[in-house]
């Protein structure tokens, strides 16, 4: 079942036509991998899904992205509301210069907690603690940090920092989480932990991941989209893309015969 439907998406940075007529839909509770050579528009694409490109001067986004039935680019939509529904984790772990606890509590403190009726309300101290523990557990970090929640986030290893960022994204209780090359700064063990976590997360969330690591895309994702110079070249079931891509360009890229 599609949760995100992208229709005729075009992105320009000034003269640069960075994404060209992209149309595709992403399934709920699935992991979609975005692959392609550097500069092909992967980050631009993923940033469209939570309207992060709005923050970039000179960036023009056209087209529609329908999430849960409503166009997030409609006039009356507040991008802040979208980012509450759609979390994001970046390439380099970017914890705030605060304690571990404060990193995870940051968003719920600002936005309040989403209630059953969908409205937000200010969190009590107790609720905040619960949310932080829940998020850290969900990000498979709790056991490693529960005795030092007050310590600076910078005391954590790179892999732990990245899981902290995932916990921080989870704390806003999003439906969708976007990952832009979440493992490229991590060692193989930390990477494996994140991959396990991604697969575990898809039970409850829809995941979109940009990755340069083809094997990672093959291991974790259900569907894979291949971009080349701003165009969506091929999009389909991951297994099929890696066994028998239909486009020659895709085969060239995944077999390492490009660039």
């Amino acid at each position, binding site marked *: 079942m599609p949760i995100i439907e992208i229709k005729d998406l075009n992105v320009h940075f000034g003269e640069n036509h960075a994404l060209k007529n992209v149309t595709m839909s992403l399934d709920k509770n699935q992991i979609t991998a975005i692959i392609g050579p550097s500069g092909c528009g992967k980050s631009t694409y993923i940033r469209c899904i939570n309207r992060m490109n709005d923050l970039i001067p000179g960036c023009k986004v056209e087209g529609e992205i329908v999430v849960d039935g409503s166009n997030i680019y409609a006039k009356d939509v507040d991008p802040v509301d979208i980012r509450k529904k759609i979390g994001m984790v970046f390439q380099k772990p970017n914890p705030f210069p605060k304690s571990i606890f404060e990193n995870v509590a940051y968003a719920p403190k600002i936005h309040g907690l989403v209630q059953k009726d969908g409205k937000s309300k200010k969190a009590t101290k107790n609720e905040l603690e619960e949310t932080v523990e829940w998020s850290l557990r969900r990000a498979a970090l709790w056991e490693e940090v529960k005795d030092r929640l007050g310590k600076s986030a910078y005391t954590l290893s790179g892999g732990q920092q990245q899981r902290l960022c995932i916990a921080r994204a989870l704390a806003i209780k999003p439906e969708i989480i976007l990952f832009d090359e979440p493992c490229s700064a991590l060692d193989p063990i930390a990477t494996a932990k994140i991959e396990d976590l991604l697969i575990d997360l898809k039970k409850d969330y829809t995941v979109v991941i940009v990755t340069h690591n083809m094997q990672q895309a*093959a291991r974790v994702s259900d569907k894979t989209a291949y971009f080349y110079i701003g165009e969506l070249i091929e999009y389909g079931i991951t297994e099929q893309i*890696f*066994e*028998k*891509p239909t486009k020659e360009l895709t085969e060239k890229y995944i077999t*390492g*015969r*490009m*660039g």
Partner: protein
Amino acid sequence: MTSRIIFQNELETLNQDVSTMATLARESVGKAVQCIVNHEPELREEVERLDKEIYRLEQLIEKRCLDIIGLQTPVAGDLRTISTCLKIITDLDRIGRYASDIVEVYDCLASSNGLVRQVNIPNMAELVTSMVEDAVKAFIERDPEAARELFERDDEIDRLYDTNFRAVLTYMMENPHLISSGIHLILIARYLERIADHSCNIGERVVYMVTAERMNPKERKKDHKLNTMCEVPKEPDGDSYSAHELEEK
């Protein structure tokens, strides 16, 4: 611009080795057949030598494949090529073994030279040789159509096997002196039939390598009656192993 030059070179070497091995297997079948049909016992040694060389290549190629999988993480067409190489070297090795089994039986046949011709072994041998040849060609030329055609000829081989079996049985009943060589002839027919099967296996892998499609069990299923005069246990359901099941997992 291409990259992964080392990887591409490794794939090319692999392809050449498998092609060489396939050519040797084809040669050994040709020589084995020539040995028994034209009575050229001096070819025996040649077949034995080829068998050893085929085995050496099998081990070498297996190692190459494993190295490539371990070090280069191949995907898509590359991965299918490697899995095909890994599979067909077993078929090629078996073909080489059967060829040497055939010449081994030659000694026991020498006394009854006439029988070989009368029971149409040459015909069967010729067809089998052409199948090995075309299987090898289908691999080298990456030709799935040629590969699929092998299956039709395999049905013909099965029919010839049945006919020969019955013919030899008749000779043996009429003349008990022929029993020993008759049995050896049946063995040869059996080896030839097995070689044809291995050629089909190669064909099936070539289809997968080129098209990524696994052959439908009905397509590869032959009239596998074998001999009506002997009790052949019923084949397990032809559909029991196949890509379909794989996909339905």
